[in-house]
């Protein structure tokens, strides 16, 4: 059983200043990941970049268009930039994915809870990601790989729609070259040129090698995928308090005031996005929430 205070105590303090006022950042690098998805590296125009923990998010502000909550997908060890992988799904995210190098962007954050990567030391780690859900998990992956000796077996299980939709393809290949971790990729649909797995990502859980009694699972993806993944983890014997999910809701204020991201008695922006499954299990099955 993890104590809430242990991981929280290690989290960086909230950014100083008025949490409603964005700081100006500059787009340093852009990498096109998929036709509708880019990764931006941004640096503050003044002052140091705030610290963050794997799993936290920022509110990115496209000036004159709007603001959107985006998980941080970079390496916490890099203290210079924020890295965000953004998919064009609406007006604000479209404006952000259309930015050029050198453009300005507003940033509030970092906000929210973190993956329990420190509390999980000594345990096996199973990371289950679906689609763009790999982005919020990438900082946790960087952390466990950089501190490999502190963990038991590590399994990274990634599912996506089609081989052409594969996020971070080069990095997945690089992680796979590590001889002491397991990286499995599956796609929902493929043509016959694809020689890898076809099927849903929860099915990979049954094939993965880990000690269910001493495993911490980190799960991020579409909510229905996470439901199936949790079922597969529970079937494998992983306890509910060892399963952590990154929840997604419509976050606006990001500090637990406005109520847009209310999830039962909790706010995803403040009490999440990373939530322990046993604490939200009763809400997870409620369709109206």
């Amino acid at each position: 059983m993890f104590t809430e205070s242990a991981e929280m105590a290690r989290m960086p303090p909230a950014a100083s200043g008025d949490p409603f006022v964005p700081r100006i950042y500059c787009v340093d690098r852009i990498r096109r990941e998929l036709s509708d998805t880019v990764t931006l590296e941004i640096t503050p125009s003044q002052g140091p970049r705030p610290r963050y923990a794997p799993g936290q998010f920022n509110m990115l502000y496209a000036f004159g268009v709007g603001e959107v909550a985006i998980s941080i997908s970079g390496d916490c060890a890099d203290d210079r930039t924020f890295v965000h992988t953004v998919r064009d799904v609406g007006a604000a995210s479209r404006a952000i994915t259309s930015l050029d190098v050198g453009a300005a962007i507003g940033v509030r954050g970092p906000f929210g809870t973190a993956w329990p990567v420190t509390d999980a030391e000594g345990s096996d780690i199973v990371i289950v990601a679906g689609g763009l859900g790999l982005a919020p998990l990438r900082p946790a992956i960087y952390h466990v790989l950089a501190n490999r000796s502190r963990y038991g077996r590590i399994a990274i299980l990634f599912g996506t729609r089609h081989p052409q939709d594969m996020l971070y393809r080069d990095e997945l290949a690089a992680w796979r070259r590590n001889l002491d971790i397991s990286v499995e990729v599956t796609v929902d649909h493929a043509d016959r040129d694809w020689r890898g797995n076809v099927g849903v990502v929860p099915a990979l859980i049954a094939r993965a090698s880990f000690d269910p009694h001493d495993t911490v699972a980190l799960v991020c993806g579409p909510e229905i995928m996470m439901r199936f993944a949790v079922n597969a983890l529970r079937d494998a014997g992983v306890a509910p308090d060892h399963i952590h999910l990154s929840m997604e809701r419509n976050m606006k204020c990001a500090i637990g005031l406005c109520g847009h991201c209310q999830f039962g008695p909790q706010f995803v922006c403040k009490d999440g996005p990373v939530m322990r499954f046993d604490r939200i299990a009763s809400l997870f099955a409620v369709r109206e929430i």
Partner: protein
Amino acid sequence: MKGLERILREHAFFAGFPEDQIALVAGCARNHRFDAGQYLFREGEPANEFFLIRHGKVALDIASPGQPPIVMSTLEPGEIVGASWLVPPYRWTFDARAVELVRAIGIDAACLRGKCEADHHLGYEMMKRFAPILVKRLHATRLQVLNVYGKR
């Protein structure tokens, strides 16, 4: 026969299977080897045999006229290929193709159906193993067709 019995006993599908019934199943079993690209069976053919994968990867393909085949699932060692042998009219409804070298045990369907009919305990043991696999695959297929990674 002893060799096949041992192989069946070690296969995940038969974990915990009663010893005497393993011997009955082994009487319907034979070894197979499929090279990459070779078909275990094709859609529309009689479902005369189902397979326990020992080594390699098998893709389940569906073809539609004028379109290249779509891979709907891949199966790995420890898994089984094929359930149409259980249900009349005993015909395959998809292609099963070896993605790489596959070693498998084939179980003769008519032989096993006959033994299950004669020994309902054996039939029930087989059903207890097949039903959860079919339910899991049905659930997975439902998740697959939802296109959960598309834009909401």
